[in-house]
């Protein structure tokens, strides 16, 4: 019982971290152009 007191919050916190990460990626437009991202990785970066 005592272990549960902190194990459950820890588990929920970690799960919530994952959920938050997903919601953030959704909001910042990571899924807007999946096709384009696949092509961009093959392009060389421009020289600075």
């Amino acid at each position, binding site marked *: *019982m005592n272990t*549960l007191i902190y194990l*459950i919050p820890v*588990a*929920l916190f970690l*799960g*919530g971290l*994952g*959920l938050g990460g*997903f*919601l953030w990626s*959704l*909001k910042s437009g990571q*899924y*807007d*152009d*999946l*096709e*384009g991202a696949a*092509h*961009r990785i*093959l*392009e060389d970066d*421009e020289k600075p």
Partner: protein
Amino acid sequence: MSCCAPGTESALDLNATSALPEDELRAGSRELGDGVWQTDLSVPAVHCGACISTIEQALSKMDGVVSARVNLSTRRVAVKWQDGNAIPAFVPALANLGYPAHLFDITADGSDKEMNRLLKALAISGFAATNIMLLSVSVWSGAESATRDLFHWVSALIAIPALIWSGRIFFSSAWTALRHGRTNMDVPISIGITLAYCMSIYETIHHGEHAYFDAAVSLLFFLLIGRTLDHLMREKARVAVKGLARLAARGALVEQPDGSRSWMPVGEIMPGMHILLAAGERVPVDGKVETGSSELDCALITGESAPQTVMPCGDLRAGTLNLIAPLTMVATARADQSFLAEMIRLMEAAEGGKARYRRIADRASQLYAPVVHLTAFLSFLGWMFATGDWHRSITIAIAVLIITCPCALGLAVPIVQVVAARRLFEKGIMVKDGSAMERLAEINTVVFDKTGTLTLGKPRILATKASDSAHYLAAARLAQNSRHPLSVALLEEVGAIKLEPFTNVIEVPGFGIEGHSGPCIWRLGRRDWATSETNGTFESRGTEAVLSCDGKEITTFHFADQLRPDAYAAVAELAQNGLHPAILSGDTSRAVEQTARQLGISNWLAAMLPAEKLQKIEELSTSGTKTLMVGDGLNDAPALRAAHVSMAPATAADIGRNAADFVFLRDSLSAVPFAFDISRRAGKLIRENFAIAVIYNFLAVPLAVMGYVTPLVAALAMSGSSILVVANAMRLMRGERKKPANSTRMPVGISMEPAE
């Protein structure tokens, strides 16, 4: 092109593209702050990684452009620019790179938000469902009562955001339905979820053994999966259809009384204005020719396949394409009184097949919801009567609601339609929504338009008397600067080679092309003109072009509008499936009869006006016939809208494409029987899925009414039935691989016949 004003056309083209955006661009852009504006452009030609870097590098180097980012999935470019003296000329720059850009309609772009909302809801309910399920498993495996209470409280907490965020989608839809006096699937779902949650809270407070938090939240999760997939399918079709280039003229170059020229949007053109119409442009409003003569492509407007010659004082209808020479015209009607607007009015008046149809899921829920609610209520009364224990009676009644909550039913339809839409997508067919597939499965008559639908709407060379390649080359040298469909067909035949042009090339509208090579005069065109034979006895068979040198015939090219690939096989397959094919065309009866004979269609009507087509379709539908209309022209748009279900090729006019439920992107007409086949099989699978759901209920409801359903049983039963339904839908993918083998074997041999 034209001898009298060389270079006019290209100057006009340039003016049209650079004059167009300045005002329209600003109106279509939005300010981001600090004088930075963003413009979203639709660039259909973007297709690979190299395009991305070409565009982005070229645009970011321009003065005033802050950044440019290409979105390959939606074929769009977002350009951010600093507001200085003028808007940076990124549209002409894109056109120079070979990527013609269109201003993207911001107003019509609200759907991405819906997708994000669904994904967010899905993520939250998924998080809640998995965590609560983990806690529930330990409860089921026999946690002691203090731990169980703790777990129930934690579950209740996790479920709250899921109910609020994810449940809202169902609650609002159920509320809208109830407010209009209807029920849909979301009503029993909302009631079930809410009651389950409330009862579980009550149980938790009173240290009860059974709480249904896991059932409520996993139900949400499963249903949202179906909902999201459904939305994804529609969104994909929408973007694909939108990416196709626009056909309608959005503006025109108007000559002012003082002689200056300015570009005006279509809506501002008034009768009496003088418009300069370059070759290759569409007529913006109805009008009359003032000076010049040319040939017009009317295929999209009237369905006639042969180009029409126009002379001064001839009528011009909005939407026709000017093929050969620049014209000046006088507008006789405003845009909202022109032909296009008339079509839109006809369309609005036509009661769409869509509007009359009620979706299978809605019809099922109309039966289902009362039955479920009645069962739950009766079991409450029964237990109340038998035991007098109201707490137990309510618990059992709610258990009945939860176990019958249409998890399998909610997934039964969308999952099949998503799988079906994917099959169609692979074959280049876009579906606007799921109800289109349900309607397609019901049809018994297929009505085709001719030009552009059964045929490609482009002439092809049949055979020449002398198939000397030198003659082809000579003809192609004459034809290479012409936009006449016959010239284009000739050039296509010769292929992409650099040809040395003749000198002094003149295109005479209605007759042909003339050019000089040394002392000789070459002509390509009508027989009497090219060979100066003045006897009118020659009866032209189909479309032909004669190549002559100094009046002597050298060779004759015969052209015919080509049937779409697999047209014969497609029509035969439809007839084999018990459907009645028919043709409604605006073309001449001779042309229609020929096509009908080639395809073996006995039921055809020619020279139909758009309103007559619409009337015919409505007659069919009032007599109880369920019609599939396949058409591409503006003249078909009202009929497309009125038909039970409709299909259009990607080459169709905008308005037709928007009216159609299905759009097929490839040339082959086999898309029609394929879509029909898939829709019918999807319909069968949907009915099977309903059967599975009903059988499941027959097994589970008695258990629930008897009071044997614990949360564990509910979780097992619900996920079990959902998995069964999804697995059944997947059969649509698997069965398909076997099918083409026996369906293509037969028609291939036959389809060779009409091609000759």
